[in-house]
């Protein structure tokens, strides 16, 4: 029965080794997709290369189908997979701020790590900026703590909130993703020449 770690098949030390191994895979595929380059990432927002959307949603669909089937077979206890608690309003605001930071800086935290590892100076400076921002955030945290912790909905999933069967939401996400991919390809063709 999975998740193996939470069933005590191995300890903390082993989980850290696995963290490194899984991270290696994460970094490898990020770089393969071209996400070590800010220009490739930023292109998403100028519509001539929608790779960010395509890679992200393919990964989401793959992992989502994976957990669905493993759960169906009874091999994975989904209730033991950590869900970040939902705080709707802070997360909406956070998403907006992060989106702006993405376009201004050209990376997100994970991709900046991939980029600095492959020698991108801007990626390194960006990571440095995240460090500075984290420090600043820690200093102002007492003042915004109330807001950050507001609007708590707990650990909830879309099927729970909309009271729909899990499988139906999964199917809908797959359909939306596939439709989105074709639309993205059309958009790329339309805006590609202007690049």
């Amino acid at each position, binding site marked *: 029965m999975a998740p*193996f770690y939470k069933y005590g098949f191995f300890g903390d030390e082993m989980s850290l080794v696995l963290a490194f191994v899984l991270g*290696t895979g994460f970094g490898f595929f990020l770089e393969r*997709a071209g996400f070590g380059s800010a220009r490739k990432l*930023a292109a998403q927002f100028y519509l001539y290369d929608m790779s960010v959307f395509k890679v992200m949603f*393919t990964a989401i669909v793959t992992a989502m189908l994976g957990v669905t089937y493993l759960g169906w077979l009874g091999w994975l206890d989904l209730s033991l997979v950590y869900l970040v608690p939902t705080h709707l309003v802070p*997360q909406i605001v956070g998403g907006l701020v992060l*989106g702006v*930071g*993405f376009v201004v800086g050209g990376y997100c935290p994970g991709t900046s790590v991939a980029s600095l590892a492959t020698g991108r*100076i801007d990626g390194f400076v960006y990571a440095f900026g995240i460090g500075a921002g984290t420090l600043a955030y820690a200093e102002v945290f007492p003042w915004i703590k109330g807001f950050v912790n507001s609007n708590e909905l707990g650990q909830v999933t879309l099927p729970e909130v909309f009271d729909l069967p899990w499988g139906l939401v999964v199917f809908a996400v797959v359909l939306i993703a596939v439709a989105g991919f074709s639309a993205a390809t059309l958009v790329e063709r339309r805006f590609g020449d202007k690049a």
Partner: protein
Amino acid sequence: MSSDHRPAVMRGSGRPASPYWNPYLAGIGLGLVLLAAFVLVGRGLGASGAFSSSVAWLVNLVAPAHAQSNEYLQGYLGDGTTHPLKAWLVFEVLGVMAGALFSGLLAGRARIMVEKGPRVSTGVRLLCAFAGGILMAFGAHLARGCTSGQALTGGALLNVGSWAFMLMVFVGGYAVAWFMRWQWR
């Protein structure tokens, strides 16, 4: 460097870079790594948490009293029995570096350079990167996760907050993209 994007060939020094993978294949690979994380350790991938741990550790080195009195950093320091850097995400991010470097070397894409459009100076680009990093840090902490920890991981688990967050990332990005276009083209 021109704004040529599709084959992403590095002209000039070194051998030509291989093209990027088909995004869907890279995405499936990423998804399988994510799934493996769920199955093996019961959690998803992330990145911004590793930055928090590192910052907490650094501040604790420089000004321990300050770090320990700060409620936010304290959360990443724990009770002092384990090293702040002995955290899951720190090891995962070290792996990301190794994996990305491996892939970059393999494809001939690893080289010291600045990613920018042809019309912007290196200094301005680096300034923007720094500013973007600061914004990113605030966004990620407000949202309790970044594009990897929230959007990717939470997206696959159909987490409500993650989907709201993901939507807003694109909204925020597209809202300012027009004003930042000089940086990339």
